[in-house]
C-alpha cells in the first residue's frame, strides 16, 4: 500500500491521512514516512488531515517528529481542535536537545567515569569507617551510661536473632556435617584411617564450617532484615523524626542489634557445633561403624576448648560484620522505595563478601 503520492503539477508529494490516526494505526504511517524519507531526504511533502476523524497523543507525537524533518513539510486542512491539541504538546525533544550538554569524547568520558566511581567508592569507605567508629563509641556510651536506646529492645533483638534463626542454623549445620562426614569417610577408608574422621569433622566444623555457614545464613536472615527495616525507616522520615526528638538513630537502632547479635552468636554457635558433630557421629556410626564414645574420645585428642573459642570468636566477628554492613547499607538509603530493595540485596552481597575475606584473613593469621 502506498499512501504517499506525487502530485503532477507542483512537484509536491502528498500524504492523505486515514480517518483513524491512533496508536493502533500509527505504525503504518510511521513506516511509510520512514521509507519515503530514505528515498527522498529533502522533499516537499504535504500531509493532508482532511479525512482525519480520530486522533490521539501518539498521533501528535508522530507529527511532532515529522515537523523535525524540516521546513519543507506542511500540514494542511488541520481542524481547530487538532490545532489546540498540538499546542498542548510542545516539541519537547527538540528543546531537550538544546539544553543537554554537548557530548564529550568517548575515552575521556570513560576515564571520568572510572575516576568518579573510584571517588565514590572512597567516599563510601569513609562513611563506612565513620559509622563503624561511631557505633563503637555508642556501644561504649551505652555500656557505661545505659541510655539512648529503647528499653526492652535488646531482648527483642535477641529473641529475633537467636530464637528465630536457630532452626535454620541448626538444620544447615546438621546437613553440612552429614555431607562433609560422608565425603571424608569415603576418602579415609581408602587409607584405612576411618577413625580420623572424628578429628577431621570436629576440627572442620568447629573451626571453619560452623562459623562460615552461620555467617552466610545470618547475612540473609538477619542482615537483609536489618537493612530493609532501617532503609524503610529512612524513607518514611522516621529516622529524621528520631533525630529531632533528640534521639540518635545510629545509636537507637544499631546498639540493640549489636548487643543482640553479641548475645545470640554464642548460643547459635554452640548449638551448631553440637549438631554438626552429632551429624559426624551418626555418619561415623552408620558408614564406618565407629561407636560414638570412640568418636568423641578421638575428637578430643585434637579438638580443644581453644578451637571452640576460636570458632566462636570468628562467628562473633562475622555477626558484627553482618550488623555493621547491613546497618551501613540501610542508613545509606536517601529516598524512594526502590532504593530499599537495592540496598537490601547489596547488604547481603556486602556482608557475605566481607565474611569470606575475613575468613581468609583468619585462616592466614591462625595458621
Amino acid at each position, binding site marked *: 500500500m502506498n499512501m504517499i503520492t506525487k502530485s503532477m503539477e507542483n512537484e509536491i508529494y502528498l500524504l492523505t491521512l486515514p480517518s483513524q490516526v491512533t496508536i493502533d494505526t500509527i505504525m503504518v504511517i510511521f513506516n511509510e514516512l520512514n521509507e519515503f524519507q530514505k528515498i527522498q531526504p529533502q522533499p516537499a511533502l504535504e500531509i493532508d488531515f482532511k479525512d482525519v476523524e480520530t486522533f490521539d497523543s501518539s498521533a501528535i507525537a508522530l507529527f511532532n517528529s515529522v515537523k523535525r524533518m524540516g521546513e519543507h513539510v506542511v500540514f494542511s486542512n488541520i481542524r481547530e481542535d487538532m490545532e489546540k491539541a498540538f499546542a498542548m504538546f510542545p516539541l519537547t525533544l527538540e528543546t531537550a536537545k538544546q539544553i543537554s550538554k554537548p557530548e564529550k569524547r568517548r575515552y575521556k568520558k570513560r576515564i571520568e567515569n572510572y575516576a568518579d566511581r573510584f571517588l565514590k567508592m572512597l567516599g563510601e569507605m569513609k562513611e563506612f569507617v565513620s559509622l563503624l567508629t561511631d557505633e563503637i563509641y555508642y556501644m561504649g556510651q551505652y555500656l557505661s551510661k545505659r*541510655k*539512648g536506646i*529503647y*528499653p526492652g529492645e535488646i531482648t527483642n533483638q535477641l529473641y529475633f536473632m537467636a530464637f528465630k534463626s536457630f532452626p535454620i542454623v541448626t538444620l544447615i549445620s546438621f546437613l553440612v556435617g552429614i555431607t562433609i562426614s560422608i565425603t571424608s569417610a569415603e576418602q579415609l577408608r581408602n587409607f584405612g584411617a576411618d577413625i580420623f574422621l572424628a578429628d577431621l569433622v570436629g576440627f572442620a566444623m568447629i573451626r571453619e564450617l560452623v562459623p562460615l555457614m552461620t555467617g552466610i545464613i545470618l547475612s540473609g536472615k538477619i542482615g537483609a532484615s536489618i537493612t530493609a527495616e532501617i532503609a524503610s*525507616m529512612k524513607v*518514611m*522520615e*522516621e529516622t*529524621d*523524626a*528520631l*533525630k*529531632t*526528638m*533528640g*534521639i540518635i538513630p545510629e545509636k*537507637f537502632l544499631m546498639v540493640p542489634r549489636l548487643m543482640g547479635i553479641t548475645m545470640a552468636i554464642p548460643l547459635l554457635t554452640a548449638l551448631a557445633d553440637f549438631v554438626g558433630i552429632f551429624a559426624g557421629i551418626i555418619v561415623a556410626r552408620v558408614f564406618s561403624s565407629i561407636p560414638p564414645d570412640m568418636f568423641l574420645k578421638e575428637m578430643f585428642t585434637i579438638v580443644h576448648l581453644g578451637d571452640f573459642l576460636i570458632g566462636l570468636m570468628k562467628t562473633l566477628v562475622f555477626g558484627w560484620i553482618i550488623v555493621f554492613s547491613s546497618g551501613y547499607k540501610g542508613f545509606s538509603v536517601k529516598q524512594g522505595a526502590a532504593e530499599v530493595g537495592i540496598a537490601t540485596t547489596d547488604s547481603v552481597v556486602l556482608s557475605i563478601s566481607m565474611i569470606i575475606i575475613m575468613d581468609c584473613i583468619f585462616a592466614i593469621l591462625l595458621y
Partner: protein
Amino acid sequence: MNEIIRVKNLSVGYENEIVLQNLDFSINETEITVILGKSGCGKSTIMKTLIGLIPPITGDVYFYDEKVDYLSEHVLKSLYKKIGVLYQGSALLNSLDLYENIALPIRMHYPDLPVLIEKEMVYSRLSQVGLRGSAHKLPGELSGGMRKRAALARAMILDPKIIFCDEPSAGLDPITAAELDHLMLELRKLFGITFLVVTHELRSIEKIADKALVLNEGYMHYYGEYSNLISLKDPFIDSFFLKNKTAQRNSG
C-alpha cells in the same frame, strides 16, 4: 513579644542545588506563621534546615538570640529539647503502638520518670488529639488523619516552645482539618506554643495565620502580617489565592 527564631540572609538547598536564597524573617513567641508557595518551591527544605536535618548553605539562624551552630551535636541536642516536629508523612515508628510512640520521647530522655506520671502525660495528650481509645493500636492500623493527630501528640509531649508542622492537614477531610486547626489554636492559647506551619489549605490559613511567608522562584516573596497579604494586590499572591480558592471549590 519575645523573638523565638530569627533568620538572617539564609540560603537553603542540597549538595548540588540551591533551593531558596536571601531568606530574612523572624518569628515571635506564640505566633502562628504559615509558609506558602507552589509545590516544590522549598517549603519542606526551609523547615528541614531550621530543624537541623540539612545544613544551611549560607546565613545564620538565631534561636532565642543565640546563633544555632547546626554542626555541633551539643547545640542540636539542646535545640531538640525545645522543638517538636510534625512530619509530612507522620513518621511514627511502625514497630511501636500509639502509646509507645508518644511515650518515646519521655522514655528516652527521662527514663526514671515514674510510670504513673508517664501514663498520665501520654493519655492526656492522646485525649487532646481524640485518640484516647486507640492507644494500643499500631500506626499501620490507623487512618492517615489519625496518624497525623498522633504525630502531633508526639510532637508536643515534652511541651516544646515551637512546633514545626509540614502540611498537617494535607489529605484530611475539612472537618478533621478544622479540628486540627482548632487544636493548634487551643495549644497556643493554653500553653503559649508557637507554630510554623506549611499548608495549602486556604480555610486553615485564614483561621490560624498571624504571619505569612510566601515563597516564589527561589526567593522570599513576602513576609509579614497575614492580614496585609490580601490587600497587597500583588499578582503572584492574588493568583495563588485565587487558584487555591478555585481548586478548593472544585475538590469540595
